[in-house]
């Protein structure tokens, strides 16, 4: 695991033009704004769909509301693209950050959970003439989805409070050299 983390940090630290762009006065703030606007789109599409599956707004056909999901995916792409820029600029601050590990875990689980919805319930819930009430399994998946995405947001906000302490001369990649010794 430590080897994998070192490899990640060193790979990201090689993206120096990205880091240089992100360190300009406007780089980081603009990427953060994109990250947060993406979050809003994601919540707007995915949370509303989950709430509809649970039973809110029953007169909205589930298949019709699903047409907003691509906007949620656009939001996810916005957070993903800006997120990778953060990671390339300050790899140490994420790769060694327990809040980041938790965030990735929540995100991966939310992805598998969405996959489970498409495999088990999508057709049943969105077929023409499907009942207003979503299948029970879809409701359980929707509750899990809401919980997991809230987990992603909260662990994302916690990132700043769980930054690893620097233990060498600063600069991207510096923790890769000192943390393995720290763990031993």
């Amino acid at each position, binding site marked *: 695991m430590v080897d994998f983390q070192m490899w990640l940090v060193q790979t990201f630290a090689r993206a120096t033009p990205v880091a240089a762009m992100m360190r300009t006065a406007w780089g980081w703030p603009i990427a953060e704004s994109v990250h947060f606007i993406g979050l809003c789109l994601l919540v707007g599409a995915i949370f*509303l769909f989950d709430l509809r599956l649970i039973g809110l707004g029953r007169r909205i056909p589930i298949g019709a509301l699903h047409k907003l999901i691509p906007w949620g995916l656009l939001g996810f792409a916005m957070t993903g693209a800006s997120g990778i820029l953060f990671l390339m600029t300050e790899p140490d601050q994420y790769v060694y950050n327990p809040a980041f590990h938790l965030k990735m875990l929540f995100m991966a689980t939310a992805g598998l959970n969405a996959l489970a919805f498409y495999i088990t319930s999508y057709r049943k819930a969105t077929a023409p003439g499907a009942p207003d009430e979503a299948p029970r399994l879809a409701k359980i998946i929707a509750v899990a989805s809401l919980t997991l995405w809230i987990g992603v947001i909260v662990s994302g906000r916690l990132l700043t409070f769980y930054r690893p302490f620097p233990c060498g001369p600063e600069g991207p990649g510096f923790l890769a050299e000192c943390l393995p010794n720290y763990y031993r």
Partner: protein
Amino acid sequence: MNDFLLWLESTAFSTWVRESTSVFAFPAILSVHAIGMGLAVGVNAAIALRLLGFAPGVPPRELHRFAPVMWIGVWMNTASGLVLLLGYPTKAFTNPVFYMKLALIALGMWLYVVMTRQLMSEGRPGLSGPEPNARFLAAASLVCWAGAVTTGRLLAYTAHRILATW
């Protein structure tokens, strides 16, 4: 003004917001603020996208069912925002960007009220697609909320005075 800010920052609650190391203090307040933002802006974005003509199978007036979600988000953010303001009043009140953020939120809320009125009139006999007026309101709403989120993020970078004692 400065005396007021000095007094505010010396209160026990303001000090707690700034200095508590508990994960239930500043980190929790910020988390509530982020979730509330997602709910409030998310519902506004969904309504605006519908008025722009996306997801045409969704009956516009039924989107009103998600209004409580939007209001939960608004109240979460009003409460957590006030707590953040009590923690760092000087930082906010001395930054013009903070007033821009408040103005954009006020405009966004006004657009929400006007947009939902449009939603309720949609689907009446004789009205088929969204009217051009509704599309303009929807586009303005999206721009407004994107601006509110952006100015909110910029607060961290544009503050020039953090505490009244500085």
